């Protein structure tokens, strides 16, 4: 389980809209005001509520299974990276000029993301979160 502190922003039906800070600990870091450009973000998650009652403003821990974290990294970053490298190496080996090989490599991740987009339903259902009260 990976946990991340968050705060319930609002609740709609059995769906909680939870706000998390993208860096854990950022919230109370003294340097937060000066932390890197455009990087301190608040992200929002939708979590299906089960059981216990929650109220907006409540501090919670958002949980996601560890392997899902790795899976997300793989889907979001590692696979496109591998694809990009494969295309790049293939074209370079075939003697394509650098500029073109490089562009092809970059372009190759477009269809990758497209495929991801098409599969978004399935991906979406794989990534589920749960929350628990901070004690």
């Amino acid at each position, binding site marked *: 389980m990976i946990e991340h502190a968050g705060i319930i922003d609002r609740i709609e039906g059995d769906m909680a809209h939870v706000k998390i800070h993208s*860096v854990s600990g950022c919230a109370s870091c003294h340097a937060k005001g000066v932390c890197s450009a*455009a990087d301190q973000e608040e992200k929002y998650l939708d979590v299906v509520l089960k059981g216990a009652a929650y109220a907006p403003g409540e501090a919670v821990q958002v949980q*996601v299974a560890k392997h899902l*974290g790795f899976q997300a*990294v793989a889907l979001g970053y590692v696979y496109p990276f591998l694809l990009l490298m494969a295309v*790049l190496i293939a074209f370079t080996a075939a003697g394509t000029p650098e500029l073109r090989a490089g562009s092809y490599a970059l372009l190759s991740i477009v269809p990758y993301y497209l495929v991801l*987009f098409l599969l*978004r339903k399935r991906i979406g259902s794989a*990534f589920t979160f749960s929350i628990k009260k901070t004690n």
Partner: protein
Amino acid sequence: MEYVIIIIAAVFVSNIVLNQFLGICPFIVVSSKVETAIGMTGAVTFVMVISTLVTYLIYQSVLVPLELVYMRTITFILVIASLVQLVEIILKKISPPLYQALGIFLPLITTNCAVLGVAVLAVQKDFNLLESTVFAIGNALGFGLALITFSGIREQLDLLKVPARMKGVPIAFIVAGLMALAFMGFAGIV
């Protein structure tokens, strides 16, 4: 073989964090969980490679022909800043849950320093395209190696009795120093 050498050099001999001093801030501040560090490595690899690739292309196809090499810094930082964000937007658009999972799992990829540094180094070293990307991979792995090792050490120190005044950032630097000391052993391997 030369690619292997580039990677080994970047990972061990002149490790980006321990020897080149790039990306120190996230290294010191972020790395407290091994799992996160591993995930970070994956993300950073992608970001570094794609940034290096794009900056390389722009450098060689725009800046060099137009004799605008001096604009390297400004172009690179603009390109990198937007690229990193672009990837995030795309991910968010594609699959919010995926993006959300990343949000929980990873801290921000605030390695601008390292990304920019690697892009600049790659053109400084006169690498060709493939070499540049491999160089980027090597550095990303080097960053990851340092980060993961360090997060392991942190997890352990967390359970031990480190004197109060050493806790947190000071001990992080000292551990980094000792790791750098150990990594000096790799000098000259390539």
